[in-house]
């Protein structure tokens, strides 16, 4: 019998699918969601995409805090007596069915008047009448498998304004550029024609009027940046640009006022338009990723506190004081350090360490903030407040307030220093020469040099090269925050790796059996029974064991959280935890194990190990030729021998590192001149990621959270890391070549300028020509680089 997949979520239904209307479901939750959709004629949810759903999670009591006024105020963007609007982040949004069902929420609840999905950002903006409330909306979404993610970040951040100023500036420049071109065209072919002479002043003053918003609005960032550069005594690339813009504008205005010529308004508008296009192109953002996350994105807004009279009340996490008793439900995150008072704690610290292995804690044990309870309800006593907890303390370090861009001179600014000086020298020499020969032309030559040397092409090289590479990297699942990260990547000499979750895989795919050999029949029954179980460990073990014939079992009984009991003919087997199966040995806390007994005789256990990612060894061997390699792990030295075997001999292995230690380690090496990439994945690496020159977060699933970093790398692409670094290096070469190319254009232009024969039409041809050929050159070469990436 083939196992069916769930009609709702697409999971394997196991042995006992729930059947409803001829459709199979893996669990009651999925069936309930289907029933809801079915009642409301919304089943075409399943037509758009096959099995698009998610299993609704247990949420009882989880959203009680949404009835508090101050929290609702923070979460809604509009609120009056009869209408509320809120935007909720829903990680599950992944296909067109999701968009469809979420935009039809009004069919499920008539109080909801409208909902609009932003697929890129994975948000839904819900408008609802006051006859319902935020909590019911969230509960409705959770009930259909679209549980919103509400974190402390939503609470503290206020409304984020979207900055659209660059689009406006580009729009203004494009508008002006187009119209100026159209008005200046007649004069390019000036033949002293009667009508042209008649209307020349009108055309020219119209061009002047159109150029005003371009110079004073669109180009304003360049003026600001040049001023800042001068103040800091840095000759950045914006200084020659601003010189060029100013001279273009002033000379053109003078020319048309005294009827000396038609001015260079076309070149002026074109220049600014091209420069802004470059800026726009470089600004590639990934809506669905965030590079700025701190612990706030992980933490809940509110938590249940048990007050002195024993009543439960919801309080904000910032209000938790030392000594408060708090209640943590299943799937909730522990917001503060504390002591477990009662309940069975099974804590998943994967947010913090990257280790997905859950830890059992007993009453009296210390719990650290950032762990997620995965089973039942626990009560704990807070020992610290949120900001003072072990994990969150890390964020008080200065490194999180530092701007990484500071102190970094990019390739364009490196060259602009020499460039600016060279241009000023040339213009002065040419002017003095003309002062002796023909003083009437001297001013003309001086301005012409500054105009023609305006480094539009140079300023465009880096944005287009890096911008294009950013896109190509994104296609290969390496999401880079901005262009300067690629540039820094090219100058790296040290690479530091975190161990757990970074070079090891989170999935347990390794199991070793220890104990009495299992008979053929036992093996088969074991495999058959694992097949019926939904427990993650059963699934893993099932996929590891070699395929045999699958037997039909006589009885199959699963005890949730304990194990499975099966009966096949005369064979009775128990599979599960040590206490359930009756293992003679003490329960081991270090490893994950599954125990097996047959006919009440203990047989042995399967021990699961973290496996190293594929290609780790090969990657390290490629990297060792070019870089210093370090493993910086928060774990104990248990794996040292294994790592020594796996990795090249000169790799440094450092264990037992606290989050602060990692940060300090990197800081120390940076003072010794190391340029460091840090590759990590958990919140405990956050400090190190922020301190390093390039912090790369490795992520199994880019849609879930990763700590603040400069780039996010999909875990499946881990072994191709070196290719990305190599491509970044080639990108620097491309930029250097395009500098050479633009120098050639400048030399040609300078010839016209120095000899005093720069006509507006020459400038109008040369400037766009150089810019466009740079754009074409960089695009073609970077695409060629992209082809080499696998």
């Amino acid at each position, binding site marked *: 019998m083939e196992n069916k997949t769930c009609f709702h979520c697409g999971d394997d239904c196991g042995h006992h699918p729930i059947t409803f209307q001829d459709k199979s479901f893996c669990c009651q939750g999925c069936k309930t969601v289907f029933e809801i959709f079915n009642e409301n004629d919304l089943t075409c949810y399943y037509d758009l995409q096959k099995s698009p759903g998610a299993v609704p999670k247990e949420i009882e009591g989880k959203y009680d805090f949404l009835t508090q006024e101050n929290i609702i105020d923070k979460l809604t963007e509009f609120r009056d007596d009869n209408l509320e609007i809120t935007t909720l982040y829903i990680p599950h949004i992944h296909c067109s069915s999701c968009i469809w069902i979420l*935009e039809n929420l009004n069919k499920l609840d008539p109080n909801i008047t409208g909902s609009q999905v932003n697929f890129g950002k994975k948000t839904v903006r819900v408008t609802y009448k006051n006859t319902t409330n935020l909590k019911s909306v969230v509960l409705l979404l959770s009930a259909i498998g679209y549980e919103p993610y509400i974190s402390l970040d939503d609470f503290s951040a206020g409304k984020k304004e979207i900055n659209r100023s660059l689009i406006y500036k580009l729009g203004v420049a494009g508008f002006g550029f187009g*119209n100026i071109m159209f008005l200046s065209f007649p004069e390019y072919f000036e033949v002293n024609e009667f009508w042209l002479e008649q209307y020349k002043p009108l055309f020219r003053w*119209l061009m002047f009027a159109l150029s005003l918003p371009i110079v004073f609005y669109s180009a304003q960032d360049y003026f600001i940046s040049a001023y800042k550069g001068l103040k800091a005594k840095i000759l950045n690339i914006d200084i020659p640009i601003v010189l060029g813009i100013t001279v273009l504008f002033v000379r053109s205005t003078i020319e048309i006022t005294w009827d000396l010529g038609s001015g260079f308004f076309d070149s002026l508008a074109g220049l600014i338009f091209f420069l802004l296009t470059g800026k726009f192109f470089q600004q590639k953002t990934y809506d669905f990723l965030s590079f700025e996350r701190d612990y706030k994105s992980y933490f809940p807004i509110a938590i249940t506190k048990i007050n002195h009279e024993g009543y439960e009340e919801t309080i904000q996490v910032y209000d938790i004081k030392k000594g408060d008793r708090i209640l943590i439900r299943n799937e909730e995150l522990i917001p503060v350090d504390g002591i477990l008072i009662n309940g069975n704690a099974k804590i998943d610290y994967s947010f913090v360490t990257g280790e997905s292995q859950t830890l059992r804690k007993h009453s009296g044990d210390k719990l650290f903030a950032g762990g997620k309870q995965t089973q039942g309800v626990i009560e704990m006593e807070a020992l610290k407040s949120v900001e003072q907890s072990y994990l969150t303390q890390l964020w008080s370090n200065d490194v999180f307030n530092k701007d990484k861009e500071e102190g970094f001179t990019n390739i364009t600014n490196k060259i602009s220093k020499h460039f600016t000086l060279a241009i000023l020298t040339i213009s002065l020499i040419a002017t003095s020469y003309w002062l002796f020969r023909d003083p009437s032309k001297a001013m003309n030559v001086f301005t012409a040099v500054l105009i023609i040397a305006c480094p539009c092409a140079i300023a465009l090289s880096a944005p287009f090269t890096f911008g294009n590479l950013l896109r190509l990297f994104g296609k290969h699942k390496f999401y880079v925050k901005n262009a300067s990260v690629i540039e820094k990547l090219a100058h790296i000499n040290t690479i530091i790796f975190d161990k757990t979750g970074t070079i090891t895989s989170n999935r347990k795919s390794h199991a070793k059996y220890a104990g009495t050999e299992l008979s053929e029949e036992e093996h088969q029954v074991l495999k058959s029974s694992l097949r019926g179980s939904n427990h993650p460990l059963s699934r893993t073990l099932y996929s590891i064991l070699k395929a045999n014939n699958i037997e039909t079992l006589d009885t199959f009984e699963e005890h949730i959280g304990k194990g499975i009991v099966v009966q096949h003919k005369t064979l009775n087997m128990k599979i599960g935890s040590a206490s359930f199966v009756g293992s003679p040995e003490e329960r081991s806390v270090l490893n994950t194990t599954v125990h097996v007994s047959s006919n009440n005789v203990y047989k042995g256990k399967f021990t699961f190990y973290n496996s190293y990612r594929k290609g780790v060894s090969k990657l390290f061997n490629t990297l060792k030729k070019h870089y210093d390699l370090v493993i910086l792990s928060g774990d104990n030295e248990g794996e040292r021998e294994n790592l020594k075997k796996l990795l090249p001999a000169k790799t440094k292995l450092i264990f037992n590192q606290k989050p602060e230690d990692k940060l300090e380690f990197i800081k120390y090496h940076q003072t010794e001149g190391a340029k460091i990439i840090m590759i990590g994945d958990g919140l405990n690496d956050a400090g190190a990621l922020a301190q390093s020159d390039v912090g790369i977060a490795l992520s199994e699933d880019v849609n879930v959270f990763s700590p603040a970093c400069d780039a996010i790398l999909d875990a499946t692409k881990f072994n191709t890391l070196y290719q990305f670094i190599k491509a970044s290096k080639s990108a620097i070469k491309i930029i250097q070549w395009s500098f050479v190319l633009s120098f050639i254009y400048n030399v040609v232009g300078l010839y016209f300028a120095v000899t005093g024969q720069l006509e507006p039409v020459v400038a109008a041809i040369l400037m766009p020509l150089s810019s466009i050929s740079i754009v074409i050159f960089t695009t073609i070469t970077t695409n060629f680089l992209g082809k080499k990436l696998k």
Partner: protein
Amino acid sequence: MSVIYILLTISIIVAIGFFIAFILAVKSGQFDDSYTPSVRMLFEDELVKEKPKSTNKTTKTN
């Protein structure tokens, strides 16, 4: 008065009209999400199953 003044005035007014339309479009957030509308516009037909349904209120008509 020459016709060229009228023509220039018209051409600039038309250009400014489009420019204002662009600014308004940016302001209303049309360029913030470039993917969802492309999916949304395909939905209308599938809504009609048994009884005709009111059109989706949230669908933008731009």
